[in-house]
């Protein structure tokens, strides 16, 4: 690290910080400021510059742990990466400007100083971007797991009758899981009737319909009945418009109707108990 830059930053620390906060506040757009109070903005900015400076004074590990904390905090606050990146650039600009203004850099040394400053800032920039993307990746993979968990549960509601309620968008991955769970469940629970409830499926296009038809066909092959329930009126209309043929599958408009029909197929019914004195 260039001694010159090091000393300059160390000596002019508070001035750099003030200019930086001022400049960044001008750059920050409405959206950013609105959600964050002035104190939080200031303290976070303070922490940010502190972190940059700690790169000069502290050991590598301490700097990294500070950086991690900071990145996590900023992500939590919802500061865009562009803004943080801008902050690093701004810091570099201020330091460079200050060095030139004070006449600490002459023409011959200019290139050297720029190079040094750059090699000091670049790893930091990379680390911030890296941190951000790591946190995002973590979030995405957690959500993926969460989504998989609620993917396609099979619920045995009554003896020989099982229900699979579907909620949300069905993509190729989920369609595969639905089929698998359905067939395994039918065999394990010894079901005679399986009800697929699509009340929570927002759009039934040809692909979704195709998967449902295939699943129903597969269920039929393992010797059970498959019923489709929870077809909302608007979904019924779009299915007709699309010209999808669901004749092979028994359909009901609600799960309740479906269960009644399922009981009928398994030759049972629900009766009210007579009052016993």
């Amino acid at each position, binding site marked *: 690290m260039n001694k010159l830059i090091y000393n300059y930053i160390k000596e002019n620390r508070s001035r750099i910080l003030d200019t930086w906060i001022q400049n960044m506040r001008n750059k920050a757009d409405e959206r950013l400021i609105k959600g964050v109070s002035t104190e939080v903005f200031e303290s976070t900015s303070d922490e940010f510059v502190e972190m940059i400076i700690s790169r000069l004074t502290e050991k590598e590990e301490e700097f990294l742990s500070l950086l991690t904390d900071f990145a996590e905090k900023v992500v939590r606050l919802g500061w865009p990466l562009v803004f943080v990146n801008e902050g690093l650039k701004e810091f570099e600009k201020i330091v460079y400007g200050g060095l030139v203004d004070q006449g600490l850099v002459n023409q011959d040394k200019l290139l050297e100083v720029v190079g040094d400053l750059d090699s000091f800032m670049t790893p930091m920039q990379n680390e911030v971007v890296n941190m951000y993307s790591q946190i995002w990746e973590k979030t995405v993979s957690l959500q993926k797991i969460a989504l998989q968990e609620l993917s396609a549960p099979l619920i045995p509601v009554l003896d020989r009758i099982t229900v699979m309620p579907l909620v949300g968008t069905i993509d190729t991955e989920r369609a595969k899981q639905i089929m698998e769970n359905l067939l395994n469940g039918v065999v394990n629970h010894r079901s005679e009737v399986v009800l697929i409830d699509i009340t929570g499926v927002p*759009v039934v296009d040809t692909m979704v319909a*195709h998967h449902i*038809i295939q699943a129903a066909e597969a269920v039929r092959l393992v010797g059970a009945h498959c019923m489709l329930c929870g077809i909302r009126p*608007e979904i019924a209309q779009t299915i007709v*418009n*699309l010209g*999808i043929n669901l004749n092979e599958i028994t359909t009901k408009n609600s799960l309740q109707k479906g269960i009644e029909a399922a009981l009928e197929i398994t030759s049972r019914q629900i009766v009210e108990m007579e009052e016993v004195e």
Partner: protein
Amino acid sequence: MEFQSCVKIINEWDIVAARQLGRNVAKELGFGTVDQARITTAISELARNIYLYAGQGKVCIEKLYEGGKSGLLIIASDEGPGIPDVRKVMEDGFSTSGGLGAGLPGVKRLMDEFDLDTTIGKGTEIRAIKWLR
């Protein structure tokens, strides 16, 4: 107010994004739930076609105001292989991917106007309009 917004279709989840956009615009224009479902389903079909056959492309949603009536225009465009036999794909039950083959003719029935423009090796553009009644 902006009249057109687009969603790039690169992976399967972009289909959901395109659908969401279409639903929001349809809601803003005052379409009822049935027409909303028709529009989102049509977008879903078109976006899925892009994803399946062209690999990538984009879906744009435009608000139309024409002669006192308003409507929603879907433009699905890609630079994929194009469609060799347009008459065939508009037939019910024709599919090259083992699907139901109801996609394009279905979209035509779901929407009020439908226009397909395709060049082999250059790409495909489909424009479909639903008018608000």
